[in-house]
């Protein structure tokens, strides 16, 4: 049980390279005991690198890692009390399920009675009790993945459980089940869990806090709700949510913005952006609807009925965006008005959200 602190951690796989090509750029963060985190981002964004730095499989090029107050940067994996579950289930073919679960304890010289008790406890927790005597190799992928997890949890002193896309090879129909098992284990053991995935649904349902990464950079660390409602970065905006956030180029002057020749009032005042920077307005389709109250004129291209809601693909000047269509949406000759919830309309300068001041 521990708190893990990353202090200025960065990593590059090449020995001499510029900061921009780092697999993981400088990061300070405290992972709190008992929380569930998800590292979310596209392939190659550095999330696995970050995970391996925490587990000790990679030594970072710079920075320190602290478990509670102890510096473990130089410690090898086996001395770190970390459990890791990999993309492909790792089991020891020649052993039974029980022997698999007992293996980490046996290697650490734990006394036999204690091993047996602990294996039984963990098997109970993971619903593996009836399989304990069976050889591990014949089992299904999800059972094998549970064994991998069990081998991590079996050590009572484990500081954190790290998951590296653990559901990749699991049958889709069992994914949901295994994920809720993970959540249940998390609640039962009150252990720090860090979960790497590129699947936003997995991340948002599993984690208390999601770390969104891209190109080796952490863009935002927030709860799923915050990521949705207040994305700090345009990438977070369109990576999370389906469809993602609408982003349109605009000119912002104080509390007004001009988009495709039309003017819209903003809820806050914004400082003048530096010359040559890209300025965009961002708003989610969920907070933009076709309504007579709207001030922006849009041309409706297509309306999709998604069952729970209707979604329109509309054109705002040259920009193609999505908006919600209420039942009574007035559409005349393919034209409609677009209303955006003011507090959910954000200004992004060079992809970063600008806070602005109350006007």
């Amino acid at each position: 049980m521990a708190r893990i602190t990353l202090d200025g951690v960065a990593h590059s796989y090449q020995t001499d390279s510029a900061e921009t090509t780092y697999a993981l750029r400088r990061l300070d963060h405290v992972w709190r005991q008992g929380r569930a985190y998800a590292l979310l981002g596209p392939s190659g964004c550095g999330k696995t690198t970050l995970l391996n730095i925490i587990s000790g499989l990679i030594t970072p090029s710079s920075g320190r890692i602290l478990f509670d107050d102890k510096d473990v940067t130089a410690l090898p994996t086996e001395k770190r009390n970390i459990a890791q579950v990999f993309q492909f289930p790792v089991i020891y073919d020649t052993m039974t399920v029980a022997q698999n679960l007992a293996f980490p304890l046996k290697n650490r010289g734990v006394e036999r009675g204690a091993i047996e008790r602990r294996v039984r406890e963990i098997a109970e927790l993971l619903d593996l009790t009836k399989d304990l005597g069976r050889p591990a190799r014949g089992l299904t992928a999800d059972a094998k993945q549970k064994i991998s997890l069990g081998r991590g949890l079996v050590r009572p002193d484990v500081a954190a459980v790290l998951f590296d896309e653990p559901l990749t090879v699991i049958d889709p129909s069992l994914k949901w089940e295994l994920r809720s098992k993970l959540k249940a284990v998390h609640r039962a053991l009150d252990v720090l869990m860090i979960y790497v995935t590129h699947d936003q649904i997995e991340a948002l349902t599993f984690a208390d806090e999601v770390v969104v990464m891209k190109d080796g950079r952490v863009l935002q660390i927030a709860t799923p709700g915050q990521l949705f409602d207040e994305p700090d970065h345009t990438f977070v905006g369109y990576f999370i949510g389906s469809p993602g956030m609408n982003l349109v180029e605009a000119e912002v002057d104080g509390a007004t913005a001009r988009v495709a020749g039309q003017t819209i009032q903003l809820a806050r005042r914004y400082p003048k952006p530096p010359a040559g920077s890209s300025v965009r307005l961002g708003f989610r389709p969920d907070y933009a609807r076709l309504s007579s109250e709207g001030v922006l004129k849009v041309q409706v291209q297509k309306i999709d009925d998604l069952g729970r809601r209707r979604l329109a693909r509309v054109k705002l000047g040259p920009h193609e965006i999505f908006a919600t269509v209420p039942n009574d949406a007035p559409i005349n000759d393919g034209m409609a008005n677009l209303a955006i919830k003011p507090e959910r309309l954000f200004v992004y300068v060079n992809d970063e959200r600008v806070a602005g001041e109350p006007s």
Partner: protein
Amino acid sequence: MTDKPINNRAWLLVAPVLAFVLFSALLPMMTVVNYSVQDTMGANNFFWNGDGWFRAVLDPSTESGQRFADALFRNLSFSFVALLIEVPLGVAIALCLPRRGWVVGLCLVIMALPMLIPWNVVGTIWQIFARADIGLFGATLTGLGLHYNDTQDPVSAWCTIVVIDVWHWTPLVILLSYAGLRAISDAYYQAAKIDGASRWAVFVNIELPKLRKVLVLAILLRFMQTFMIYTEPFVVTGGGPGSATTFLSIDLVKIALGQVDLGAAAAMSLIYNLITITLCWIFYTIMTQLDRRRDA
């Protein structure tokens, strides 16, 4: 059921292959069968001998039966010793090879070099290399005060043949094992690290089980090759001293070409062939059966 038309004329497409196999394997084999049931007094006069040759070869109380049994025992001992050395040695070396970088290619090429040398060249190299008076290997051993002479001392002769085979063919085991080891995903090693496994535990619980399949292949190949050994003893020791290194194949050639005992030689070669096939089949069946039972 299938709606596709069945046309037996399609068999004609296989005919060229059948004809080829007939000429390359079946016909020569049948001449051997033909010889094995006949005796000759020379001058191309053959007469029927039935299973006489087979009974003589298989009965250790006869002279030819005794020769056959002795040679067979030598073959089995040789295969056993060679496999006992080559397989563990090959796996051990494969474990020590680097896993990445340009050295990998270099190491593999150096390792594979002996395999690229033809058998009789290997024999000739070692014939000179092992000479007690001028050969580097033989002279060094003699210089160290060891009693070594591969043409006069049976133990030396045996050791030489075994060392040649180990030198020539351990690389095959190395390459197969190395390929098998490379196929093990890094996650296994990382998981083992996290589980606090020792190097030995990693070998026993991860590497060895994952190498099973390639090792079955390696053992099978090496068994077949060592059991059919011919060129090295023929070139280096000529089957001697005495009959210390007279393996089945050497004896066969002596009987067929030296004594022109075609009937006896034919019967012997058929039995030799059957033994090889049977042993390989037993090997293979046992190993695959074990595998299947573990899976069940």
